[in-house]
C-alpha cells in the first residue's frame, strides 16, 4: 500500500515539476519577446544584416520548397481529377488546386518545411554562438546580441516565409496544370479561367499571406528564443533544435485552425 502511495506522490511531484518548468519556459518566452520587440525597429538601421538573413533563411530554403510544392501540386491535380471526374466537373480542377494551395497547403506545408529547414538551423547557429561565448564576447564589446544577431534573423523569417509560401503555391498550381492539363487532358482555358474567375485576391490571397506572415513570425520567434536560451552544451543544442521543430510545427498547426476559423468560419 505504501508503495502505491509513494508511486502516486512521485508521479504527482513529477507532474508538478513539469508544469512548473513549462510555466517558467513560457514566462521566459514572454520576457524574451518583450526584449526583442524593443530591438525590431532599431534593427532596420542595418538593413544589410536583414538581407543577409533573408538569403540564409529564405533563398537557401528554395530548393526544398520548390520541389515539395511541385509534388504537392501533382498529387492535388491527380486526386482532384479523380474526384471531380465523378461529377463531370473536371474544368474546376484549376480552382480546386489553387484554392487548396493558396488558402491552406501553401502556408501550412511551407511553414512545416521552413521550421525543419530554416528554424532548426537558426536555433543551432545561435545556440552554438552562445556555447562558444560569441554572444558573450559581443556583449563585452558593447554590441547588443539581441539587436545584432537575433532581430535580423527574426525579420529574415518573417519576410522570407510569405515569399516562400507564395512560391510553393505557384509551383503547386503549375504541378496541377502539368498533371491535369498536359497528362489527363483537362481544358487549359478552363483550368486558368476558373482560377481567374473564382479566386478572390483580397479574400483568398490576402488570407494566405496573413497566415504565412503569422507562421513566419511564430517560427522565427521560437527559433531565436530556443537558440538564445539553449543550455550551452552539445546536448543543450540538440534539445533546443528539436524543441524548435516540434514546438513551431505544433504552433503552426494550432494557429492554422484558429486563423481558418476566423477567416473562413461561419
Amino acid at each position, binding site marked *: 500500500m505504501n508503495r502505491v502511495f509513494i508511486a502516486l506522490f512521485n508521479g504527482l511531484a513529477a507532474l508538478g515539476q513539469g508544469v512548473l518548468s513549462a510555466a517558467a519556459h513560457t514566462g521566459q518566452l514572454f520576457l524574451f519577446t518583450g526584449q526583442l520587440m524593443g530591438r525590431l525597429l532599431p534593427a532596420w538601421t542595418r538593413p544589410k544584416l536583414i538581407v543577409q538573413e533573408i538569403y540564409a533563411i529564405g533563398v537557401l530554403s528554395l530548393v526544398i520548397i520548390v520541389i515539395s510544392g511541385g509534388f504537392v501540386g501533382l498529387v492535388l491535380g491527380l486526386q482532384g481529377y479523380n474526384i471531380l471526374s465523378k461529377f463531370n466537373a473536371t474544368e474546376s480542377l484549376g480552382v480546386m488546386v489553387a484554392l487548396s494551395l493558396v488558402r491552406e497547403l501553401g502556408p501550412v506545408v511551407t511553414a512545416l518545411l521552413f521550421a525543419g529547414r530554416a528554424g532548426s538551423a537558426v536555433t543551432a547557429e545561435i545556440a552554438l554562438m552562445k556555447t*562558444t*561565448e*560569441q554572444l*558573450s*564576447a559581443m*556583449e*563585452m*564589446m*558593447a*554590441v*547588443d546580441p539581441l539587436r*545584432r544577431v537575433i532581430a535580423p534573423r527574426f525579420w529574415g523569417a518573417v519576410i522570407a516565409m510569405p515569399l516562400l509560401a507564395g512560391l510553393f503555391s505557384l509551383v503547386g498550381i503549375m504541378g496541377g496544370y502539368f498533371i491535369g492539363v498536359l497528362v489527363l487532358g483537362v481544358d487549359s482555358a478552363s483550368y486558368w479561367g476558373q482560377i481567374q474567375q473564382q479566386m478572390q485576391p483580397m479574400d483568398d490571397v490576402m488570407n494566405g499571406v496573413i497566415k504565412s506572415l503569422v507562421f513566419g513570425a511564430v517560427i522565427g520567434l521560437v527559433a531565436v528564443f530556443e537558440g538564445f536560451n539553449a543550455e550551452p552544451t552539445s546536448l543543450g543544442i540538440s534539445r533546443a533544435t528539436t524543441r524548435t521543430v516540434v514546438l513551431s510545427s505544433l504552433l503552426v498547426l494550432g494557429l492554422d485552425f484558429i486563423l481558418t476559423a476566423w477567416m473562413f468560419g461561419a
Partner: protein
Amino acid sequence: MKPYIQFEQMSFSRGRNLIFDRIDMAIPRGKISAIMGPSGTGKTTLLRLIGGQIKPQSGRVLVDGLDMAKASSQALLAMRRRLGMLFQNGALFTDLTAADNVAFPLREHTRLPPALIARIVALKLQAVGLLTAADQMPAALSGGMARRVALARALALDPELMLYDEPFTGQDPINVGVLLRLIASLNQALGLTSVLVSHDVAEVFAIADCVFVINEGRVVASGSPDELRAQMPHVPFLRQFLEGAPDDTQSVAGQQSANNLARALGLKRVDDNRPSTKGTR
C-alpha cells in the same frame, strides 16, 4: 592613486551556492593584476562581474568609479567600449575571417572609412604577429593563433582595461611565452590596466604586479608576488596552492583506496596496513 576596479563587500551566489562572500578587493590602475585560485572558485565569474554581465546580490563592483550593478544600460555600454576581454577559448566569430573579427568592434562603434579600418586591423594583427593569417577563418587557426587574433580584436578599440580569462590554459610553452611577452609589453606600451585570471602560478608570477588569491569565496592572500612568497609559510592554503602540493586528506584517502585495490587484485598482503609508496610486493 585611486584603484581602477574596486570590490566592496561584494557577495554573489548562484542558486544556493555562495561563490563570493563579502569580498573586498582594489585593483590598481596601470598595473597587471592577477586573480588566482583553484578551478571552480569563480575566477571567470569575477571577470563577468567586472564587465557588468552579471550583478552581485549585495555590495558593489566599481569600475573607474561606475557602479556596474546600478549603471544605466547606456553607461554600461559606454564603459564596455573602454574595456577589452580575451575569452578563454578566444570566442572568435566563426563566420568571419581573422581580419573581419578584428574589424568587428571598429565597424560596430566607429564610422571610420573602410581603408582606415583595414590599416588599423593590419596594425593590430601585426602587433600579435599574425598579419599573414588575416584572411584565414578561425577554424583554420591553431588554438594559440586563435587566442592571439582574439587578443588583437580585444585591443581594436584601444581599451583602458584588459581582462584576460585563463590566457595560458592549453597553450604550448612557446605560445605561453609569446602571450606573456604580449600581455606585459602591451600593458606597458599602451598604459593599460590589466586583470588576468589564471591558475598558472609560474606564468602569473613572472608578469603580475599584484596578485589576489581566492578560495572558497574569500580573498585568502594578496600582494606582490614577493609578498605572497613571504606570506606562504603562514597561510597553509597559499603554500599548498603555490607549491602545487596535494591536498592532505585527499592524498591519504587516495592512498588507502589504492591499497584496497591492490589487495583485491592480490598484489599486496592483506595484513599490510601501512601506507606504502614503493609499489607492489
